[in-house]
């Protein structure tokens, strides 16, 4: 108890220095936590992907379509339970600033394959019935104040023209990781228009989604699907949804690695700063440590005092940094919603933040602790006066 009191009082002897150190650690922990969250979000699609879903796309590239006729043949492959399809529409609402993801889908089986999109039965039926209908995620509907029955017009980029949809349903995500900023409409509607305007682009889909009967056989089914279309004009590449998502992530992996490195560099920098502060502190207090040793206190007591002070200051900074992550992530979620619709710091990140703060304090204390603990009493006392 006495030592805790001594550690706390020592920590605030130089208030400005301590406050600046706490602020430095807090900012470092805040940055570390936010960068970790950012990297984690990048992989959220991968983590939330289902083991029982396969994605089939054109073997050359995702930008090349596949014939709609493949749907029936895929359905014949053993182990395939459900087949649906979709296409990236890439429409723009009002202007480029209001961009959000939009897909043309085959609604019934698509929604069966994605139970994480939660719609009421009435909304689902209304959407399936209306070929010009669409569903949107709740966050998107909230952002634009859309209500059921509203008409939403998108400007096509891949498929030119003005596309008008009637809002038939607003889905909620099953969990916080489910994307709620997507618009989905009938692929049939897109295809009908294409048949009239650009017939060469009709009857094609961007990708197939396959539900398998046994997730343990997913790899086998994927091989069978690809074998089915071997040597055809549009060969396929089938992979698990996780692998498909990882493929997207891999495109930006270098950026993610750079962000991760930056987050570690931030911690190393603050470690050096904290170590410098603690070294200065320990140097100033050498006579006091010598006095304590004179009175009979051992090396372990001195080590506990120096180490305790360093960890205490760092932990205060860590707690402050963690507390700051909440308003910071809220600000990102509201102000940068277009890029980060879901930016929530996980509990694991908070624990890692606090452990990192303790680590900063511990590493920063190593040299000062050694110095304070090993100082010869006579040398330490000589520094007074």
């Amino acid at each position, binding site marked *: 108890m006495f030592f805790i009191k001594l550690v706390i009082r020592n920590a605030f002897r130089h208030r400005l220095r301590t406050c600046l150190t706490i602020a430095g650690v807090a900012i470092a922990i805040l940055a570390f936590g936010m960068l970790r969250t950012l990297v984690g979000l990048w992989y959220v699609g991968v983590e939330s992907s289902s083991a029982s879903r396969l994605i089939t796309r054109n073997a050359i590239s995702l930008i090349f379509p596949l014939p709609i006729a493949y749907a029936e043949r895929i359905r014949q492959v053993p182990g395939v339970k459900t087949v649906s399809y979709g296409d990236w529409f890439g429409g723009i609402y009002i202007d480029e600033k209001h961009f959000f993801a939009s897909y043309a889908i085959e609604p019934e089986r698509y929604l069966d394959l994605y139970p994480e999109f939660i719609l009421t039965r009435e909304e689902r039926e209304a959407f399936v019935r209306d070929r010009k209908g669409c569903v949107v995620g709740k966050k998107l509907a909230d952002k634009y104040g859309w209500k059921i029955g509203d008409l939403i017009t998108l400007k096509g980029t891949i498929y030119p023209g003005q596309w008008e949809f009637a809002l038939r349903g607003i889905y909620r995500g099953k969990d916080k990781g489910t994307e709620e900023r997507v618009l989905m409409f009938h692929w049939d509607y897109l295809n009908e228009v294409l048949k009239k305007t650009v017939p060469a682009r009709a009857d094609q889909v961007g990708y197939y989604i396959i539900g398998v009967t046994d997730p343990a056989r997913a790899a086998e089914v994927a091989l069978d699907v690809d074998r089915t279309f071997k040597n055809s004009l549009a060969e396929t590449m089938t992979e698990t949804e996780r692998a498909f998502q990882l493929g997207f992530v891999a495109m930006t992996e270098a950026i993610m690695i750079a962000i991760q490195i930056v987050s570690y560099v931030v911690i190393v920098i603050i470690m050096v700063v904290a170590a410098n502060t603690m070294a200065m502190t320990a140097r100033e207090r050498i006579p006091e440590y010598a*006095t*304590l040793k004179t009175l*009979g206190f051992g090396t372990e007591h001195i080590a506990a005092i120096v180490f305790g002070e360093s960890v205490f200051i760092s932990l205060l900074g860590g707690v402050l940094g963690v507390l700051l992550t909440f308003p910071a992530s809220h600000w990102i979620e509201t102000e940068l919603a277009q890029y980060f619709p879901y930016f929530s710091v996980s509990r694991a990140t908070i624990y890692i933040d606090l452990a990192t703060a303790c680590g900063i304090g511990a590493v920063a204390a190593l040299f000062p602790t050694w110095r304070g603990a090993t100082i010869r009493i*006579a040398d330490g006392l000589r520094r007074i*006066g």
Partner: protein
Amino acid sequence: MQNDNSSIIEIAGLCKSYRRGSQIIPVLEDITFDIARGEFLALMGPSGSGKSTLLNLIAGIDRADSGTVRVAGVDITTMSEAELAGWRAAHVGFIFQFYNLMPVLTAFENVELPLLLTGLSRKERRAHAELALRMVNLEDRMDHYPSQLSGGQQQRVAIARAIVADPVLLVADEPTGDLDRVSAEDVLQLMGRLVHDFGKTIVMVTHDPRAAGKAHLVRHLEKGVLTA
């Protein structure tokens, strides 16, 4: 006065030198003398004569190159660092020139410090610390921090800290060196009382002839050699 004339400190053939680069500088050479129980001894000598080094060796905070220091029959020169720490805590009280109080602790907490190494309960520690502060007439300043006390008062707190664990030996390195005349006189009177009334043995290093005048015996060191 409780001087029973038996030796509490026996120093024999004590040598100490410091190394500066490749140069070896002798500080103490073949020091041999005894200090009687309940004696108030002043060590005097010019700067660099080795008096503080001798005090450190007697108090077990430095190590001799050769020779022995026996305190109350125990040879402290053969003790390990940990044993010496325990021995100091139990047997020696320290009074420094610049008081060496912990600035973040109150007078009471500073006095309580040595008792943390004993098995005393919190209540017992409180009683001992209050008694020690009462002995130095600072019972009304227990909750003051060192920065709120005068130099003389700080030195009295340091004396209370030195005596709180009831050591047999008190070592004082220039205890009046940083004090004005009145405060110095107070501190010396207090030290005299500790010898006369409580039978403590004090070894004091000083430059001040007035301070040395309060001691029973004055020994002089010059260039590491005991001259008188």
